């Protein structure tokens, strides 16, 4: 009895396909509507060229980050969302610590989702803007490979920009 309307529903909307994305870092799986997932150019290319199986493995992206990416895609796949709504939702997604943001920017880059790449890059830039370079090095895990002389020369080249920084 209960299955009848469900069958009917499936029959009337057979085009509503779903895809399963699987994080290869912690094996978490996410079932998403195809049109939501296709906002990723990388996934779209896989689907278009028939390279995608039932489960699409996503390497190097953790389940936590993948959930954020999917949230972004869902928001932007909603045709009735206003520009203001989307802006607010985007701000919520990128209101994260810098390490999560770096993971998110790598994910956006890998999955090729332009809008997410933009908002995440902007947020990272905003959060490192007035930081001393020593802190930026730490956050990005950048090893300073300048010799002290070289570093002094780089600094002297644009010394105006370093005024007020240690």
């Amino acid at each position: 009895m209960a299955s009848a309307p469900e069958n009917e529903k499936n029959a009337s909307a057979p085009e509503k396909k779903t895809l399963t994305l699987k994080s290869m870092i912690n094996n978490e799986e996410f079932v998403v509507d195809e049109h939501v997932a296709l906002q990723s150019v990388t996934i779209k290319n896989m689907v278009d060229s028939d390279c995608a199986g039932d489960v699409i493995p996503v390497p190097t992206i953790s389940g936590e980050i993948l959930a954020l990416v999917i949230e972004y895609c869902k928001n932007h796949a909603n045709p009735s969302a206003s520009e203001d709504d989307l802006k607010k939702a985007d701000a919520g997604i990128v209101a994260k610590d810098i390490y999560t943001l770096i993971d998110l920017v790598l994910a956006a880059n890998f999955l090729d989702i332009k809008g997410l790449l933009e908002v995440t890059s902007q947020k990272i830039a905003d959060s490192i803007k007035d930081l001393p370079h020593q802190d930026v090095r730490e956050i990005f895990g950048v090893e300073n490979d300048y010799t002290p002389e070289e570093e002094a020369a780089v600094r002297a080249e644009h010394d105006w920009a370093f005024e007020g920084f240690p």
Partner: protein
Amino acid sequence: MDLSMKKKQLKENPLSKQCVTLESEDRLSTLPEELRRHIISFLPMKDAVRSSILSRKWSRICYSLPNLIFEFHRFPNVESKLDRFVEFIDQMISRQDDSRIKTFKLAFWVENETFTRIKNAWITFAVQRNVENLILTTQMGKTQSLPSCIFTSKSLKGLHLGIHDLKLPTSIDLPNLKELVLMSVILADHNSTRKLFSSCPALETLVMKTCDLYHLGILAISAPNLKHFVIQNCSGFYKCEINLLTPRLKTFFYHADVPRDINTGNIPFVNTVFLFFENTHPWSTNHSFSAAKELEQPPYMLFYLEMNSQDFSHIKLLNHLEYVEIRNFEGCDIELEIVEFLLNNAKVLVEMKLIARESRDHTGLTVGINCVKIRSINKKLLAMRRASSRAKILFSYIM
């Protein structure tokens, strides 16, 4: 980089301990060059330049930025600021790699012939590198003019000129220009002005802010693809005739004094016209209203729309109109007619604010609002049919 060193470093460092898994820590240092550059491009110039000190890998990123923004007023107040600013731009330009330059902005208000020559060399560099958006707020001086290559650029999509002594060249051809913004420009020669507008066949947005048109005579705009036209805080329109040949015009925001005349040819697609006539020309002269009526069919509107942002892409069409503010309201028949028109048609209107002020003519007689009038106006306002059930009318007056 030495991985074990890095892990050791991260373990010893309390800040890094907060971060997620070790795998992701290791990836931080391998942020691809392209991605690093992308992030740096969102930084103000000063911070972008500072990134060169992070490590060798980062040393040249600031010479491949898509947006080159040079603003004298934002440059730190260092010793011999002017020399340092000029030196900085020279350095940035001479070291640019082959990356695409999307935007070049120069805001530099120092009047001096030598600087004008230097400035023009920088601008020429940007144009030769196929810049897409060029933003210049500067002055040229009596004998100098902008490099003429700007006006024949095939790559330019956006051009913002804040140059009050702008001299236009004889040859103009901007086939891909979509947005032109003129700020504080003195437009005095109607032939060269007309030529500028008619040499941009792809133009979609035209903004004129705080421009001076006292000596222009005729503002003739022939632009087949123009969709948005904004005139804001310009002066001298009362001496000027506006001739529009813009068949695709969709929004026209007008905030200036009443023009001598408006000829719109036949604009079939205007669906929103924002007009706010300064009170130097009272509504009661009928002039303003007839000028607006000439702008084809309704909906025409005479009001000043208070906007939250300077971004004119947010201009709401009548169907989306939520707030209306009419200033210098006197309650004369024409004004009431406009109020009624808006109330009858704006379906989602939330608030209409009418701000009245008592005024006196040169003989000292009251010509605007008075107590008797307020009562009768109130009565008329309440009787008007409102298309939006939420619409509220706020009528305030200063006596």
